[in-house]
């Protein structure tokens, strides 16, 4: 028994060596700090003898640090918002990123294609603060471009930052605008890597461009699509703080459609700065993601082992 596992180890020696550097990194930079998550269960108070002694001497409060996430009627709203936005981002993001990648590959002029690609990548560089300023310059009641436009058509100026019903569309649009270019790069690279002989064979069979895309390109991308989607599912309880805080300018009247778990936690802990509670919130978000990933990975594994995460 022991010799068998030793043999197995020896056979995999070289591959284990390849894994080693990053594995050590994971231990140091991910797994060790994870032990600090125990803060989520204490009322963290500083102790003059450093971090460990602080944890040790802090009061154990069980699950009390988690309570604020579930206590009020807001709990439902923030959970609903976080999940629904993420679902929209996952589905629309996937469709658009793949579509854009296919489109860029098919454009005949390489130079133009590259230019478009660079252009679509640009929004990724703008921070949410900057994006927030642009959205404001576009939507602001007095000077905003959009209200100037609508006033031409004789419509009343709208106070966009007081109208929650438009924000789901605005936020989804902005998210896609910012990230689709970035995400499409992965698909673009994947299309480039598809075995050329597959297309040749298809052409010999007389398949047109559309058929090639449907029967070769997309199936070849499923593996990447599945993996990226699985990873996104793992973060479904996390929201991009900047998008939901900077872009709506923290306008209270919009909370019903813009408050998400991350903004709720930020606002709630801004003054008290309780480490225990912020750690608890993160742990909760991670835990839900973990359960979802395990479940969906299990399902994916049943269908196609190659597309599973592990």
């Amino acid at each position, binding site marked *: 028994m022991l010799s068998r596992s030793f043999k197995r180890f020896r056979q995999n020696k070289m591959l284990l060596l390849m894994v080693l550097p990053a594995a050590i990194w994971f231990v140091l930079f991910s797994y*060790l700090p994870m*032990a*600090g*998550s*125990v803060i989520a*269960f*204490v*009322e*963290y*108070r*500083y*102790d*003059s*003898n*450093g*971090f*460990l*002694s*602080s*944890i*040790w001497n802090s009061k*154990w409060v*069980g699950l*009390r640090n988690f*309570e*604020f996430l579930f*206590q*009020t*009627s*807001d709990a439902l709203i923030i959970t609903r918002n976080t999940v629904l936005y993420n679902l929209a981002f996952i589905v629309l993001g996937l469709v658009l990123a793949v579509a854009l990648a296919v489109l860029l590959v098919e454009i005949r002029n390489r130079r133009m294609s590259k230019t478009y690609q660079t252009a679509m990548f640009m929004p990724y560089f703008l921070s949410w603060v900057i994006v927030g300023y642009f959205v*404001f310059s576009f939507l*602001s*009641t*007095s000077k905003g471009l959009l209200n100037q436009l609508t006033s031409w058509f004789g419509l009343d100026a709208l*106070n966009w*930052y*007081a109208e929650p019903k438009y924000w789901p569309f605005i936020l989804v649009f902005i998210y896609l605008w910012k990230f689709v270019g970035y995400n499409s790069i992965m698909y673009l690279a994947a299309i480039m890597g598809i075995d050329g002989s597959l297309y040749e064979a298809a052409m010999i069979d007389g398949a047109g461009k559309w058929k090639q895309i449907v029967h070769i390109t997309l199936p070849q991308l499923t593996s990447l699509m599945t993996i990226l989607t699985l990873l996104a599912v793992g973060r479904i309880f996390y929201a991009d703080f900047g998008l939901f805080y900077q872009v709506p*300018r*923290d*306008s*209270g*009247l919009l*909370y019903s459609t813009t*408050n998400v778990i991350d903004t*709720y*936690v930020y*606002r*709630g*802990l*801004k*003054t*008290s*700065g*309780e*480490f225990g*509670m912020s750690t608890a919130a993160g742990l909760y978000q991670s835990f839900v993601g973990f359960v979802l990933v395990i479940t969906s990975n299990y399902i994916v594994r049943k269908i196609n082992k190659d597309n599973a995460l592990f």
Partner: protein
Amino acid sequence: MFKNKRMLAVGLTAMLGGTLALSGCSSNNNANNASNQPAPAEESSNANAPAAETKNEPVELIWYTIGTPQKDTDKVMAEVSKYTADKIGVTVKMTQLDWGDYSDKMKVLTASGTPMDILFTSSWAFDYVQNARKGAFLAIDDLLKSEGQGIQGVLDPAFLEGSKVEGHNYGIPANKELPALEVWRFNKTLVDKHGLDTSNVFSLESLEPLLKTIKEQEPDVVPFALNKDYMPVVPYDYLISNLPMAVKLDTTVYKVVNILDTPEMKQALKTMRAYYKAGYVSPEAATITSLDDVQKAGKWFIDRAATTPFADNQWSASLGYPVVSTPASESVVFNWSVMGSMQAISANSKHPEEAMKFLNLVNTDPVLRNMIDSGIEGTHYKMAGDNRMENLPDSKNYDMPTFSLGNVMLTFLNPGDPDNKWDEYKSFNGAGKPAPTLGFNFDASSVTNELAAIQNVKGEFWAALMTGTVDPDEYLPKAIEKFNAAGLDKIIAEAQKQLDAWRASK
């Protein structure tokens, strides 16, 4: 179940601890052997290691303070150290963290137990009360008596009284403006142009005729400039700034109330709503964070600010056009105004006595105070009179925020400052009436969940109500209801209990 979790915690902690110990750092983290074991080889090179000290060598103090890092800080601190090594046997290493980073970084540094001796804290950056409660600072009651008599001599007693947390002092307030006095600021150009009289202005309502004139005659100007942090002045003392728990200023019964439920606030919100509807307030008021653009362009008429002696001059200088002001509130000494700028001794300081000696000297010795503030004479500044200095070109390499570093009344006057500047400060400070809860600081640790919830409710309604963006008749009841659902009642009850206990103990 409970027990298992405790075990889990022990396990995880042990895991983290084990590895830290392996690296030879445990002496930093483990109290029991820090003092009586020789420092490990790795640390003996470190000048701070207590083992390396002998009696005659000066002690190095690590000082973290707020402000944009300056090029010449190390150079000036070398001079400072020469002076202090002579006088009290300490040297100083100062690290400045920029305004926007200070709170976040200090939070990590203190939580992780990074060695330091002195650190800046205040009511608006790296919150003093919260961090004192969490144990970031050393209680200095005894040290103040033994090493800090000088400080007690120069500070108005209200400073030390108002910065007590649970009856203990954890930091030394800088001697500067003590009370909070709100003023209406006017764009003087417009005041003069329309021949307006600002002398009778005091209440929010009294602004109406002025605002009306400006609205009618200056269509480009925002008559009443305010941003999302604006709150009408009401005669109440907030237990936590900007949260609705408050006590009336002239109270005798010390009853904690929800500020939104008070007649004064209701009246103020109604007025704000009327102003908003009349177009005196920018329609974006509830979403803008700074008034920078209208003020740069001079396109505003009235706003509100907290004042200090001669503030009008400074405001006019920094805006580039004249600004005048008239009071908008009584002059009151609040807990938060007392805590406007403080230096504390870190709980993990290895040299608390020396740190206190140093702070005592900073707050009483003009030579040291001015060196820290203005740098080296002949390099960064030159004297231009008995108590007056002038900046030299190199002062751009050492430009410090004076108020953050200790007693401002020891500092040299700048060109243009009136001779009686500090006398004015003293009379300004003398005029402030103590707030009813001066010295009482609410301990929110038993209601942290409720506090988190009401913070979100506040975010939802506050700015919209305060700026008049929404109709208080409709939204005020909604807000009150939601605040109560989030647990404001419970917080108020807890605050009342603590306040009563505090009064009984006085």
